[in-house]
């Protein structure tokens, strides 16, 4: 007999996500046979940006998400640099990477310990660990106690990663130092030495605590190496430019289809967004970000999400640490719940080690800023990665003001609803066939969701404007 289960809110993620799964018995196993993911917050950032000075954008767009603000700051100044035709000095490129890298380290550690671990831990008798579901908690008391201790230590580590980022960024979250043409902070020697001292604390934690914990969890829950695969399509814009033209990156741009080891290129004109199942007017469906429209419409028949459905050449793609590490050739063990956690932990180490190299490349007395000559009409695109995946900002200006600002965020890719061809989004697909032992405590569903590290604030701001938003109200509705 099929049963529909709602999980709303899905906790231990950023933002507002509702999940509906239909569960039924298939071949003697109770499992998910249908899934719907709903983004339940809409703010309309793009509308706020239209008419503003383009250089406000990195400040405003950082507030799309407080867990991953820095990627938005980075994408925004990259789009502005491209639009204004300016190249940031090397010191600025490095500091932008150092603050972004600190955000990645903080976010990945936070994700494993504070957002994910409670799916597997039956912790002490107090919040936040309790009350909790009891289903399928396999860890013995000693391991549980150790992980609880690591959870608390990880709060200290994420704090330190943010302090490290603030040394150059000004404050974390939402560092104000990002600006078109460079960076505001000077790379003073005392900041450099403090940054290195923080890395000397974070690296041992990543190597000796975080990575082993992920491995230990994966050993006890090894069945999760075969749960939550989804489509196996992986996409990355790439991140951490190693040179001034962005051709060489720490993690490269590319995409893989259905778990293939060959990496294909990305042509931006292949990106479209469906809205049939989203609360936007159907006339705006399947448009490329450079030419689209966002006209919110609620209520709307069949729609169930404030997220649109981004597709590449019509196909859904997963983004995130696994996608980046796969495309870059650093991780090809598999695509599953546990593979996502493994890849994320390994990526944390890779980035932290790179930060150590980069901070030593700073020139304390070197330039940090090249003043751009800002044309009154301009356009530029900034493509980078947030911890959760590929992120793009599309900027257009006219008469010196923003005329269009479009953003496609990682969680929009991952947690998207059905598209016009009724293909599920990556997270919905990954939920299919997931075993559910206890209908009252569908912990398996939570584990699949959390493996994606969803960030719903990011997912739902997308817009493309040209017209003012119109609201259609169906008569008689609340």
């Amino acid at each position, binding site marked *: 007999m099929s049963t529909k289960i709602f999980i709303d809110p*899905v906790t*231990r993620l950023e933002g507002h996500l509702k999940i509906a799964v239909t569960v039924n018995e298939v071949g003697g196993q109770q499992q998910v046979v249908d899934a719907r993911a709903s983004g339940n917050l809409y703010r*309309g950032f793009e509308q706020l940006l239209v008419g503003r000075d383009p250089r406000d954008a990195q400040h405003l767009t950082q507030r799309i998400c407080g867990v991953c*603000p820095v990627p938005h700051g980075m994408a925004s100044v990259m789009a502005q640099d491209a639009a204004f035709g300016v190249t940031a000095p090397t010191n600025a490129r490095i500091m932008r990477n150092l603050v972004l890298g600190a955000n990645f380290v903080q976010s990945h550690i936070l994700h494993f310990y504070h957002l994910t671990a409670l799916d597997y831990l039956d912790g002490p008798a107090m919040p936040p660990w309790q009350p909790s579901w009891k289903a399928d908690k396999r860890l013995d008391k000693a391991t549980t106690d150790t992980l609880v201790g690591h959870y*608390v230590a990880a709060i200290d580590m994420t*704090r330190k990663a943010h302090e490290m*980022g603030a040394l150059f960024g000004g404050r974390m979250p939402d560092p104000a130092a990002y600006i078109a043409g460079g960076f505001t902070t000077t790379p003073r020697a005392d900041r450099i030495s403090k940054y290195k001292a923080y890395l000397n604390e974070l690296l041992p934690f990543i190597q000796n605590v975080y990575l082993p914990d992920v491995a230990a969890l994966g050993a006890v829950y090894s069945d999760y190496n075969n749960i939550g695969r989804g489509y196996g399509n992986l996409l990355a814009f790439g991140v951490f430019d190693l040179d001034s033209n962005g051709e060489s990156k720490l993690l490269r741009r590319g995409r893989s289809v259905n778990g293939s080891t060959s990496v294909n290129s990305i042509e931006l004109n292949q990106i479209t967004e469906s809205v049939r199942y989203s609360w936007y007017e159907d006339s705006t469906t399947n448009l490329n970000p450079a030419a689209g429209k966002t006209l919110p419409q609620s209520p709307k028949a069949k729609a169930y999400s404030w997220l649109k459905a981004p597709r590449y050449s019509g196909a859904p793609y997963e983004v995130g640490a696994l996608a980046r590490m796969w495309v870059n050739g650093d991780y090809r063990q598999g695509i599953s719940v546990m593979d996502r956690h493994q890849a994320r932990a390994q990526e944390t180490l890779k980035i932290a080690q790179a930060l150590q190299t980069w901070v030593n490349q700073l020139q304390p007395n070197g330039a940090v800023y090249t003043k751009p000559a800002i044309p009154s009409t301009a356009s530029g695109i900034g493509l980078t990665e947030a911890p959760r995946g590929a992120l793009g900002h599309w900027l257009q200006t006219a008469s010196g003001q923003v005329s269009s600002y479009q953003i496609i965020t990682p969680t929009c890719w991952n947690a998207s609803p059905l598209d016009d061809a009724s293909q599920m989004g990556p997270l919905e697909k990954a939920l299919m066939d997931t075993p559910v032992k206890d209908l009252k405590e569908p912990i398996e569903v939570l584990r699949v969701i959390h493996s994606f590290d969803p960030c719903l604030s990011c997912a739902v701001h997308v817009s493309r404007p040209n017209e003012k938003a119109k609201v259609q109200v169906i008569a008689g509705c609340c």
Partner: protein
Amino acid sequence: MNVSRRDFLKFCGLSAAAVGLSTSELGLLEKALASPSGPSVIWLQGSGCTGCSVSFLNLFTGGASVPSGPGSSTKFKAFLPLVTRDWQHSEPAPNPGPDPTPAPSPSPGPSAGTAADVLINNINLVYHPNLMSLAGQDAVAQAEAAYNKGGYLLAVEGGIPTAFGGRACYAWTYNEQEVTFEQAVRTLADKAAGILCIGTCAAWGGIPAAPPNPTGVMGVKALTGKDTINIPGCPTHPDWIVWAVVQLLLGKPIALDSFGRPTQFFGTTVHDQCPRNGLTKATTIGVDNNCLMDLGCRGPATMANCPLQKWNNQVNWCVDANAPCIGCTEPGFPGTNPFYAPGV
């Protein structure tokens, strides 16, 4: 924790008006304070970005042992340096030269004040979407139980969108009914012993409410008519949040300005406390030790003690990174003027 009845009555007399609590609300707060596990806190998130919760997790007030005075709780001992220092009238920190002690902040000792300490030892965090173990209806049931009992502190992060019938933000689904954030806030604000607006969005709408305010975002007081203690900032500062919670629990009065902000932190402008006040004005980006006013700094129009409190365990703050203040603690934030002056 227990606050003596005498201290509590003193608190009532001095500060009821200041925190805007009615007699019945004071009764609820007294019950909350008397709870051995600490007050129940329901933390809601609406039309925001979670930045204030992330900032809260960065809390660190050092580990020095402090004397306990009459009426002080042993539970909050670690936070007393934070609450007893007069942040408003401290001398601004001198401009740092090359730093002889490059070591980062120490790991917390047993008496350090950290976010973990607050969450685990000092309050009963009944509901927090980012941190709590339970999900779905079982999670909402925790908030409902606290609501039924009364006497809880309501912390709101993010504003409340009212367009689309409130459907631009859903709080949860309960008994197969979807509940908008607007409905959840109206309900929970009604029986709260106190309401803390965490961040500029909850206080007055913040960035999502910037023109044209596409989703009709409102702050908590504007929506409900209830008095709130507003801890603004985009994000807000963890010290500011904890200070307010500690004041409430120790029975100390909180003086608020006409925008509901504690004057302890928001009584003086950034500019008046800034170490660069009076220094040569910067004419371009990236120059240390220059006043940033001509670059568009909103310090003169922004109430906040950032120059003294600084950020992230005092490692830096916006202006010391040569980034002009964007005025994130003000009711009108972000406003319509550009953050950088023309020609910068």
